[in-house]
Structures are given as C-alpha cells and as structure tokens.
C-alpha cells in the first residue's frame, strides 16, 4: 500500500514537470511557425516570473500555512541585488552565461538573507498579524530601495540616501542605482528557455522538499503546532526554513524579471503589496498547497485577460469576484457541505476515500 502511495506522488510530480516542458515545446513550435503575437512573446518571461513566485509563495502559504503578503519584497531584493551585480560586472565578466548564473546565485542569496532576517521576528507572530507585518516589510523594502543612490568611480563606491549629486563622485563616476529611477542598462540575459529552466529548478526544490522529512515537519507544524512541539519538532527552525527557501526562490524570480528589462525601478506596480496580493491570488485560486494548481492559475490568470483584450478593464474585477466566490465555495461550512453533496466523485459513484465511523 505504501509503495502505491509513493508511486502516486511520483506520478503526480512527473505530470507537473511534464506539463511545464510540454508548454515550453508547444510555445517554441508556435513561435517558430510565427503564430505567436509579439505581445504574447513579450509576456513569456514575466509569465515564468509569476509561476516561480506563485510556486514559492505556495511553500509558505500552503505548506507552512502562514499568510505572507510581502513576497514582492523578496522578489525586489533579488531583482536589485542581481541587476546591480550584472551592471557592475558587465565589463569584467564578458561571458554572459557565467555572469547571469552568478547573478542568479546572488539574487537568491540576497533574498534568502532578507527572508531569514525578517523571518526571525515575523514568524513569532501568527495569522493576521503575520500577514500585516510581512506586508509592512514588503513596503519598507520597496521604499528603502527607492532612496538608495549608489555609484562607483575611481575612488570606489559611493552611497547616498538623498540624491545622486550628494555622492560627490569624480567626473568618471557611474551611477549604478539611481534612487527612484532605479537601475538602467541591465544586460538582457533572461529568456523564455531560462525562465522554463528556473521554473523546473524551483519545482524540483519545492516538490522534493515537501515530500521529505523537512516537508513533513513543516506540514506537521501547520496542522498542529502544539502536537508538533510535543513530538520534538523544532518549530522555529522549520518555519524559518520554509520562509527562507520561499524568499530565496522569489529572489530568483526577481533576477529573471530584472534581466528582462532595461530599466528596473521599484514601483508600487511591480514590487508593491498589490503584486504580493496578485501572487497570493494565483496561489489561492490554484488551490492552497497545490503546486501544480499554482502554475496553472498563474498562467491562466496572466494570459486570459491579455488574450481577451476587450475584457482588460474588467480583469481585476473578475479576479476579485472569482477570489471571493472561490473562498466562499471552498472554505465556508455551507460551501463544503454543497461540495460534498455534489462532488464529481459522488456523482460518478466512485468510492469515497472517507470511511464512516
């Protein structure tokens, strides 16, 4: 019986990987055939970014059971740390692949560091408080990045929190981070293929972690914190681990995002709490804790409104309605009773897993 269970897991995971690879191949064929509009083509890298963000957020929301509203903040850290690195080493490291590989590592590490440092105090809180504090941290990160001016000249690095002029650089100096204007001239290293590879790596990390001793401990804490403690599970360690890994993967998404743009600026639109909430919408609508669902929701909810251009004005409104309806349908006592009565399994007379006492 347990062997069957193992196979069920593995099969489901293989489907998830296969789905991503298939989507890539289909897209590539369509692009080769010239059937893809430039609009859609431009969406592919952001789409990969969203998928990585959704999968990584699911690790915190679904697996660890904590509502984080600051995911965009970690993405922001990864984006800026890596874009800064790539810009600074543009001349020193000419091998694009190597430089981008290092940029990914730096983005992931920087976001992980932030996740770890923020996680230590934040994870002591629970529920709504945790949600609002993660939101606060996300906003702080965005606001602070907006006042950083960083430049480099023959005398070394200069930093200011006021304006570029206050750095007193030599005439040969170059402004690397220009406050609200952000970072300009980041090499365009991201591509759809790289995005897909990063999605696969993210999936590999998240899925394998969930289906291991670590994942079990994290889910045990989610299900019953007091019981988990009573069997000797270190609550802080595993909560922090999930949070840090999730932040680091969001950082990777940020790297991908930053190297797809010539100008990177921290605005409410891309790194504000609205972005965090949008990612949360993907996770919720895909099914909390359901990794494959996160991917599908991110893709569908990004592509659908773009493809149905005429509906674009109603897009956010539709998100909102679907979000509310989903929660009421899946989480309310009434909705659950309804689902049990009219579930597909019941309708097709398949054996229900639930055994009556």
């Amino acid at each position, binding site marked *: 019986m347990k062997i069957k269970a193992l196979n069920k897991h593995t099969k489901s995971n293989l489907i998830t990987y296969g789905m991503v690879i298939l989507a890539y191949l289909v897209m590539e064929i369509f692009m080769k055939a010239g059937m893809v509009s430039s609009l859609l083509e431009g969406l592919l890298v952001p789409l990969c970014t969203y998928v990585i963000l959704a999968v990584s957020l699911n690790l915190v929301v679904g697996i660890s059971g904590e509502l984080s509203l600051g995911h965009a903040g970690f993405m922001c850290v990864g984006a800026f740390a890596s874009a800064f690195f790539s810009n600074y080493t543009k001349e020193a490291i000419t091998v694009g692949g190597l430089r981008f590989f290092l940029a990914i590592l730096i983005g992931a590490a920087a976001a992980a560091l932030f996740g770890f440092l923020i996680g230590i105090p934040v994870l002591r809180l629970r529920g*709504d*408080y945790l949600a609002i504090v993660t939101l606060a941290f996300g*906003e702080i990160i965005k606001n602070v990045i907006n006042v950083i001016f960083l430049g480099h000249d023959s005398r070394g690095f200069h930093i200011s929190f006021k304006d570029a002029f206050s750095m007193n650089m030599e005439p040969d100096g170059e402004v690397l981070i220009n406050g609200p204007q952000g970072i300009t001239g980041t090499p365009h290293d991201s591509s759809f293929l790289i995005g897909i590879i990063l999605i696969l790596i993210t999936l590999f990390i998240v899925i394998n972690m969930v289906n291991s001793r670590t994942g079990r401990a994290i889910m045990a804490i989610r299900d019953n914190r007091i019981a988990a403690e009573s069997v000797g599970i270190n609550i802080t360690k595993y909560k922090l681990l999930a949070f840090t890994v999730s932040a680091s993967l969001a950082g990777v998404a940020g790297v991908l995002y930053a190297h797809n743009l010539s100008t990177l600026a921290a605005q409410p639109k891309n790194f504000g709490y609205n972005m965090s909430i949008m990612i949360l919408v993907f996770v919720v609508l895909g099914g909390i804790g359901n990794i494959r669902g996160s991917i599908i929701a991110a893709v569908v909810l990004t592509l659908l409104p773009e493809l149905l251009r005429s509906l674009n*004005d109603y897009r956010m409104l539709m998100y909102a309605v679907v979000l509310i309806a989903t*929660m009421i349908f899946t989480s309310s006592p009434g*909705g659950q009773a309804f689902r049990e009565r009219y579930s597909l399994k019941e309708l097709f007379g398949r054996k229900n897993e639930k055994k009556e006492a």
Partner: protein
Amino acid sequence: MMGFISYLVNGISLGSVYAIIALGYTMVYGIAKMLNFAHGDVIMVGGFVVFTTMSGAGLPPLISILISMLACTALGVLIERIAYKPLRGASKLAVLITAIGVSYFLQNMALLIFGSNTKSFTSVVNMEPISLADGAIIISGETIVTVLTCIVIMVALTSFIKYSKSGRAMLAVSEDSGAAQLMGVNVNATIALTFAIGSALAAIAGVLLCSSYPALTPYTGAMPGIKAFVAAVFGGIGSIPGAFIGGILLGIIEILGKAYISSQLADAIVFAVLIIVLLVKPTGLLGKQIQEKV
C-alpha cells in the same frame, strides 16, 4: 520650534483620521475576529459618494455627508452579508483572503465607474484658519473640524458601548460569542451592527481625509486603511481608546518623519513602528493577552 508645533498639529489632524478609521478595524476585529482588509476601500467609496453628490449634483456638504454615511453603512452591511457571513467558522486564512478580494472588488469597481484620473476633491469645511503666534502657526479649518469630529466620535462611541443595550451586546460578543448567543444576544445582528457603525465612520473618515488631502482616486483608501490598521494594532486591537491613541501617535510619527527624516521614507517609518510594537508588545499598548489552551 514653531515649525515643530505646526507639524505636530498636522500630525494630530492626520492621526485623528487614522483614529476614526482604526475604530472600524478594531471594532470589527474585536467582534468578528477578522481583519477587514476592505475597510480602507470603504473610505474611498465614502469620498466618491460625497464627490458625486456635492461637486456633481450640487447638494450641500452636510446632505452629501449624510448620503455618504448611509451609502457606506449599506455597503458595509452588504459586504458582511455576502462575503463574510458565509465564512463564519472558516479558517482565518480564508476570511482574510476573502477580505482582500472585497478590497480588490471595491477598488476596481470604482476604477470602472470613475476612471483612474485623480479627482480634485472640494473641501467640505468652510472655515477660516486660525492664526497663532503672530501667524507663525496657522491651523486650518479642516484640522479643527477633523480633530473635533474625532473627539466627538470617541466620546459618543464609548458611551454607546457602555450604556446602550446593543453596545453591551457588542461587548458580550467580543468576549465570547458562543456564550453571548446562549444568553440571548443575536450574534449575527450584532456583527452586522458593528459593520454598519464601522462603515459609517469610514465614510466620515473619507470625507475628512479628502478635505485635507484633496486628491481622490480608487486607491485613495488603501494606504490610509493599512496605516489605520497599523494604528489599531499599535493601540491594542479590540480596544477603542487604543485605536484613538494609536491613531494619533501614528499620525504624529508619520508627519514628523516626513518633515525631519525623509518624505519618501515616511511610510517605511510607519511600518517600522508597527513591526517594533508587535515584537516588543504583540498585544499593542492597551490590548490584552490571549493564551492558547492546551
């Protein structure tokens, strides 16, 4: 020195608005045990109703405000009925996500109706500013009205809860809704009443906010909403005096931060305050401790 005092006055004024909004959060949190993320957007709705009826239809300010309060009350009760009531007893995560959905809904509905252009809001206050210390400090009519309104609301609400039957029902539900129900308190009606009062207050807050900061967009309510929640947490969530103190302090911190540290970092400072408060005293200044039973 004079500069400092006028910043302080501005801070108290902004803080009064936060306090009024924070009341809505704190009452709903105390009674329904949920974070009504959409509360901030009700403020925005309140602002738009006044904008349409006053600047659009030419009604007198007081009538517009009344209409706005009625509209927001209806909206608050409707939101509770449609979105939150079915989720009573569901997980906190589900309720919070639903509230986020409602917030999105209101913002985007306003976006569809009014567009994304910033509307210039005409102040409802028609009062000469007071000039002190030979004109070194000027206190605007909006400031005076805002602070006075806040004080009146605080006093009225506190006595309502203390002395009226419905008010005491609210207290009972916030202590233990199950026991209150057994004692004959209509819990559903009490929660609906809480939403009604909170939303009516949000309408007032919206008008005051827009009178002092006359730029109205569909997103006007979001940030003040979040900050008012910070204020509620700061003062101790569930506590009415806490919401007042938290709101005023937060307003002062924000304005002083803007003036003396950095205008771009003012929000960051406000959020940093929240984080520090929650880490040092998670129950806020006046909140009470709840321990999980094993």
